């Protein structure tokens, strides 16, 4: 096994767990049991951490390529659009989760809407990831 593959695999592990957090967290907050703001709060921290991991590990993919090969990944067209979608989702997800964590006085309806939005952002990022991976 070469060091580059090991490095990419380590980054991929972090990226995969980040993806699980940002999609699974909102899903678990909303379903299968009725929404409970108290139960959802620790999940919000997990989702917040998940988006940070997504951003850092995503950047690490590019950084690793540049350090090891002197080039960033060579992507074009649909893959660039998918990457931009992922970045937009990550930034929006991070900001929205931070807002939710900071705003303890929001109503249950608002909280539910935020969690639904977070679920949509996570799912969109996950879908975009597939296009980024296969349509460079």
């Amino acid at each position, binding site marked *: 096994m*070469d*060091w*580059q*593959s*090991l*490095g*990419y695999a380590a980054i991929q592990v972090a990226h995969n767990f980040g993806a699980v957090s940002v999609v699974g967290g909102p899903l678990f907050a909303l379903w299968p049991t009725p929404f409970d703001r108290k139960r959802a709060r620790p999940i919000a921290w997990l989702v917040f951490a998940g988006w940070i991991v997504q951003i850092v590990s995503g950047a690490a*993919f590019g950084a*690793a*390529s540049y*350090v*090891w*090969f*002197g*080039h*960033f*990944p*060579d*992507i*074009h067209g649909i*893959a660039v659009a998918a990457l931009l979608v992922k970045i937009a989702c990550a930034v929006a997800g991070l900001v929205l989760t931070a807002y939710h964590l900071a705003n303890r006085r929001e109503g249950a309806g608002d909280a539910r809407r935020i969690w639904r939005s977070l679920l949509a952002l996570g799912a969109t990022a996950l879908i975009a990831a597939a296009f980024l991976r296969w*349509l*460079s």
Partner: protein
Amino acid sequence: MLKLATLLAAATISAAPPALAATGSITITSPVDGAKLDAMAQTKLVYAVVPGPGGDHTHLYIDGKEVAILRELEGTRTLETMTPGAHGICIKVVNKAHTPIGLQKCIKVTVE
């Protein structure tokens, strides 16, 4: 921490692209380098690739612009229509992250 830094440094030093490229190869059988192509005819690219360690698949470029992913290591690909004039056709081996690893083959053709 020092050990980790040492390991990372070793990994970086051992990651020189020429070393990776040394055991791979790219052959473009058709068109040949310097070929004159008919603007009205379809041009087929015939190639064979040995990606070497670290290589996964290849990207095809015309005039520096990526036009296709070549996942088959050996095959034929119909090229998009090119305008009259000189053009460069390149195949680059990339890794799973779509990063060129330094192994590439480029030819020049003239479309008339």
